[in-house]
């Protein structure tokens, strides 16, 4: 089930589990809005989970691509007659291209330098948004974004339930696509680069090019999430491109655990629900999240999902031992 850690067949049990969770969410959670927010950030966190878990790239810059997706979708919807699906996909593609360009510059440095560069570029995105206020609306963001049917006249997004169904479907496809990539020949190369990039280079893999491709895919996922966010809210506020967005996506990924795509869903779910709950109690709830993150890094390096998987694995083997007939003595 640790799709990112080692090669796993596709699809696996988590694919089905994901489908069930997505269908159940709006019925389990207090509001369908909360469910929509959750699936949006699940896809956003997935971009970090994918990069760190599969390729070993810690990106503090995914908020930039989330923002490009959010603003891109808003601009397309405001200025063209395209349907929601086309707008979402086009915005994600824009984010992917931007991520490839940032990736081209960032993969010149490895390790810590790379992380520093992603953070710097994320801030650059924020200042670019402020500088281009004619296009982006500056501090006000883009408001009054229409929510047209998904394709042509089909799939009217008038009700929150319909919006959730659309977003959940995209979320499902994004997760399935990520699982597919992880268990493909390309995924095996990315895993090899994470394990040992010098060896991967010596084997004949153009490590930089593969990293750029991975970053473009990560940018695509983040951009997808940003565009979903615009559909969800009907506006593109500046906080979608703030550096805090990058940080939030990293936190979600770490809390959930980066060993498998499911970690992103768990991490985003945990964060969104906890924020929803805590923010009514204490406005400085982010501090609790920060303490939680330190605890997870120090004591649960596999994150919530990874640790749960370990527990389930142990329980299963324990039960298997208990059920199997004891060897009879003498």
């Amino acid at each position, binding site marked *: 089930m640790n799709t990112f850690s080692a090669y796993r067949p596709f699809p696996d049990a988590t694919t089905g589990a994901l489908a069930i969770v997505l269908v159940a969410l709006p019925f389990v959670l207090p509001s369908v809005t909360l469910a929509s927010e959750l699936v949006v950030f699940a896809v956003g966190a997935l971009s970090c989970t994918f990069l*760190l878990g599969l390729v070993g790239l*810690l990106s503090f810059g995914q908020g930039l691509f989330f923002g490009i997706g959010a603003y891109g979708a808003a601009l397309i919807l405001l200025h063209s007659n395209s349907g929601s699906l086309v707008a979402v996909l086009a915005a994600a593609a824009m984010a992917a291209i931007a991520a490839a360009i940032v990736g081209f*510059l960032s993969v*010149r*440095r490895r*390790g*810590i*330098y790379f*992380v*520093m*560069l992603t*953070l*710097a*570029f*994320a*801030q*650059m995105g924020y*200042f*670019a948004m*402020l*500088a281009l*206020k004619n296009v982006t609306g500056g501090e006000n963001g883009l408001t009054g974004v229409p929510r047209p049917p998904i394709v042509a006249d089909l799939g009217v997004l008038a009700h929150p339930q319909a919006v959730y169904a659309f977003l959940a479907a995209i979320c499902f496809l994004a997760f399935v696509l990520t699982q597919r990539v992880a268990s493909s020949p390309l995924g095996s190369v990315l895993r090899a680069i994470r394990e040992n990039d010098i060896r991967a280079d010596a084997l004949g893999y153009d490590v930089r090019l593969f990293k750029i491709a991975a970053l473009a895919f990560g940018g695509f996922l983040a951009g997808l999430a940003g565009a979903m966010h615009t559909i969800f809210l009907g506006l593109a506020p500046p906080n979608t491109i703030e*550096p*805090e967005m990058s*940080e939030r996506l*990293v936190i979600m990924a*770490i809390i959930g655990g980066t060993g498998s795509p499911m970690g992103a869903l768990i991490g985003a779910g945990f964060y969104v629900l906890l924020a929803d709950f805590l923010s009514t109690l204490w406005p*400085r709830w*982010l*501090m609790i*999240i*920060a*303490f939680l*993150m*330190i605890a997870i*890094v*120090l004591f649960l*390096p596999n994150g919530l999902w990874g640790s749960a998987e370990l527990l389930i694995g142990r329980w299963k083997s324990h039960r298997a031992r208990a059920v199997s007939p004891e060897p009879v003595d003498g």
Partner: protein
Amino acid sequence: MQGQVILFQLLNGIGIGMIYFLLSVGLTMIFGLMRFVNFAHGTLYLVGAYTAYSVSLLTGSMWWALAFGPLAAAVIALISERLILRHTYEMPHEAQILVTFALALIFQESIILIFDPLAKNVPVPSLLSGIVFIGSFVYPAYRLAVVFAAAVIAILLWFALERTRFGAALRAGSESTEMVSLLGINVQKVFMVAFLVGGGLAGLAGTLSAPLRGVEPFMGSEALGVAFVVVVVGGIGSFTGALLGGLLIGVVQSMASSLWPEGARLMIYGAMALVLLVRPAGLMGRS
């Protein structure tokens, strides 16, 4: 007139650049010494600035603030090194980054808790609140003082690094920590002093910039990004790199602000991208 505007912006840029240098030199020094990137480094700038704000509010004097700002940051740097950071030295870089990043968040939230999320002004020290005439050229005295103060500190720091036993240990440590311990120097102590000094300088940067830009809780995370740009441009682990990178970034930002005010901050990242393309290891960096 045009020439005066350019000179004005150039001086402003040097002032901002010197503050960026103070902000970044600790980060680059600590990285050179122990391959440790402190994502909580911007916090020290934040602490310096808020200490300056509080002290000047309490005492009515910016001079006390100048003493307490760096001190508070240095103490916090030292405490976090002793209590938390040193336990992460053996961990993967990702873990160090995430722990220090979480620390930064905790400090940022604490600041909002103690004060509030709103931006606040900090007065310029009364003695320096005027202007100076250089011939027919008029310039704010405080900004000029910042340039001088930072230059004096840069020289002192250079002297300490190049001419003292501790500096030698620090430079040797950035080559090989093993060598330092072989020389009979207490590596732990060198680390502590590096954090103390680096933290104090970042705090000083925050203190000095407080009257120029005011204080707000998110200035720490912004400063972290700027410090990263400076070390990427200058070449990480290099004192000269931090100085050159800081000045270059400061001047670019200041010059751009007279041409395209909204895009001034954007330009510093443009400068970084350019340096990355031409010299991936930074101006003074070894590849």
